[in-house]
């Protein structure tokens, strides 16, 4: 009897959260748009054109019936490249966020839970990373990772994911640390201690689940950051190397043709804009949904 009551209460909490999210119209719309983005990226192979098939005689054609987004400086179909680029950019966004959040949670949890000298040490490291000029970090990491020829020959995607994670783990770290600092003082933690539960289990099974909402909201922001940073990296030559398309390197190449062929810039730019806007709105919706005091 006790169990079934508890279960029913747990269900209705989840149901409440869901209901609050569903009432956030911008978030719902954004979810639909994001689903559309992911779907279009998945169906990229259905395109009649290959993303790297060049036709230099047909370069810089404006959008037309045979090339819906026009062609680029080597005569490649822009729509196909934008779709394939979406695969890479969304994948990089998701994986970099996963890595960044994982690192951030571990650092933040350790710092917030144990406090003392460990907290000091970890927070100084975090501060150091926060104050490093981005460009130096990029060059340093890129160069270090390319000293390992196996990595450089195979996967610039891996390098980009690592670089973005290194640039963004600090924010989830701080967030999680704050949450752990306050949560560890709560009675349920003291109770667990008293019963003899180990530190690891308390952090992982007791405190962490209470921070999940915070982490998820932060993660959506990081996805947006990742996608935009990937574009920035391409401008500097550190991103995904051509001819593999990504929204970032499509934008970087388009810059030289800004006046002559603006469609090269408009479509990838629009994709980045829509995706990051959608992700941010979903983050808003999630934040409101998880907040029990939100008025909706």
């Amino acid at each position, binding site marked *: 009897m006790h169990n079934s009551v508890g279960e029913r209460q747990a269900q209705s909490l989840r149901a409440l959260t869901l209901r609050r999210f569903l009432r956030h119209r911008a978030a719902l719309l954004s979810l639909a748009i994001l689903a559309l983005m992911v779907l279009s990226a998945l169906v990229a192979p259905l395109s009649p054109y290959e993303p*790297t*098939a060049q036709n230099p005689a047909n370069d810089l054609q404006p959008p037309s019936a045979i090339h819906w987004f026009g062609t680029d400086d080597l005569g490649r179909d822009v729509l196909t490249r934008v779709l394939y680029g979406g695969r890479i950019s969304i994948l990089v966004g998701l994986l970099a966020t996963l890595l960044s959040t994982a690192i951030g949670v571990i650092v933040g949890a350790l710092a917030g839970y144990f406090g003392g000298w460990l907290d000091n040490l970890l927070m100084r490291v975090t501060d150091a990373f926060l104050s490093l000029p981005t460009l130096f970090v990029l060059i340093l990491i890129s160069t270090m990772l390319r000293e390992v*020829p196996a990595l450089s020959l195979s996967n610039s995607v891996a390098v980009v994911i690592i670089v973005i994670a290194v640039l963004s783990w600090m924010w989830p770290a701080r967030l999680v640390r704050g949450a752990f600092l306050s949560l560890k003082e709560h009675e349920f933690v003291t109770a667990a201690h008293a019963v003899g539960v180990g530190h690891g289990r308390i952090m992982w099974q007791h405190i962490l689940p209470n921070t999940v909402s915070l982490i998820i909201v932060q993660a959506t922001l990081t996805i947006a950051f990742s996608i935009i940073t990937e574009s920035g990296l391409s401008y500097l*030559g550190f991103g995904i190397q051509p001819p593999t398309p990504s929204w970032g390197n499509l934008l970087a190449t388009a810059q030289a043709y800004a006046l002559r062929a603006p469609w090269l810039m408009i479509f990838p730019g629009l994709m980045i804009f829509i995706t990051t806007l959608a992700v941010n709105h979903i983050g808003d919706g999630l934040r409101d949904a998880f907040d029990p005091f939100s008025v909706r």
Partner: protein
Amino acid sequence: MRKFHGLVLALVMLCVALTACASPQTGTEAGEEGSSPSGGQAVLIIPEEPATLNQYLAVAAIVRQVADATNTGLTTVDADGNFQPMLAAELPTIENGGVAADFLTVTWKLRPGLLWSDGAPLTSDDIKFTWEAVSHPESGNVLSLGFELIDSIETPDDLTAIVHYSAVNQAYLQQFMFGLLPRHATGEPAEMSTWAWNRQPVGAGPFVLGEWNAGENIVMQRNPNYFLAGQPYLDSLIFAIVPDTGAQVAMMAQGEAQVQLWPGETKEVYEEQVAGQAVLAEIPGQWNMALYLNLSKPFDDDPSASAPHPILGDLRVRQALSHAIDYDLIVTEINPGVSPTVSPFAYGWYACDVARPYPYDVEKAKALLEEAGWVEGSDGIRVAQGALHAEDGTRLTLQLNGYTSFQPLAKLEEALVEMFKAVGIETTIQNDDFSILFGSYEEGSPRKLGNFDILVYDASLPIEPQAVIDNSFHSAAIPSPENPSGANYHRWVNPAADAAIEKAGSTVDIAERQAAYCELANLIATEVPRIHLYLFTEGYGASTRLSGYQVNIWGSLSWDVQNWKLEN
């Protein structure tokens, strides 16, 4: 309501005031007619910032484009490829006694009354100091000018410098072309790479540095002590650092700038873009785009040529690469407006007419690769099976290394990737910043250490090419800890090539030297340490208001800036 009107009025007045303050200060000097051609300020757009104004430390071409405005040497080379005296009173020749019959003594006479930009007298001692500084082993000098061939320099009086050579230096006229260094305003030769002079030069050029706003612009004023009376005609120069081509073109089209370096467009497209405000002054240039193949094994901690490259060590593979490239497509569609080249000797008195031994032929390329033991794999990429230097199962994957921030190069690389894919070669692109690609041995630059497959970049030869050729192709010029300044990046060891290079360096007879260079050119084309593609055109966008300039492939953007005039 009244408050609102007042606010609007205030805003409008503020805007007007700001616009008036922001308008550029172009114009003639006070007291001169509005239509006078002299005076004025020219804005020159450069796509990147030079790291230094000391040409002897210049790794990137941009340095010379700017530094020629602040410093002048004993001679210069005009647009026809002939040496002209600048700070020197006349060119030393055998006839006027300036050059000894055995070519081991050259006497330079300076013009009388020369001054540095800070007013100090410019004397023959400065010629001696230039040699001392540039030839010092720790100076950081990167130019191969043969300074090490100088035994001593006598300065019997302030206007005379007698240079004694230990061996014939064919480049004696070029030797002091890149600017003299002032003993009184620089420092110790061993510390040349850290001189304050490098960022604030005291020179003998037409302009003197006023302000250097890092990342933004370099401002120069007329040098009051310039040796040509009445020149320079312009009052000041601003080198504006604008990396974005779109912004560069906009500035030219609106008349905000008068010169745009390396616009990277064909003439028709460019002149349309700048809406008649400027013209593209261009000629076939000096910068020769080529693929540099590493013949030795990369990433084996051994910069020498000892172990062959598993893929490129086999001549048949290199020939196949050469056959796989559609040279016509490159010069017509990929990088339109360039002129095709087959060897490094593509201009000047040493130009050689070499036929391409391995022209575009996809079937031939495939056949050669099969013969070399590279069979087609399941995904279209070849795999080694009985290859000369590679273990069975190795994929035929090569990496192209170029430099960043140059769209024509990026486009060329992508085109090459497709061409190589068509014959079963998988190619990846990894572009690096200039500082990494063209770094020094100590800095661990991949091309110095031999840690690359194929480099792709453009290089040029000076009017006196022997030192560069020797350092690029001779087997003794492979970079190593003992020889960090070596530039035989391909690790090419070929006795016939060595002999041709030595022959070209042993005589002053122009015809004999050219024959030797053409022999070398044929060897390069047939043995394929390099695949030459094309020459960029040299030129810049110039405002219709600007006159007096002449595009010169032997010079730089500012080689004749003392002759420029601006109409109003």
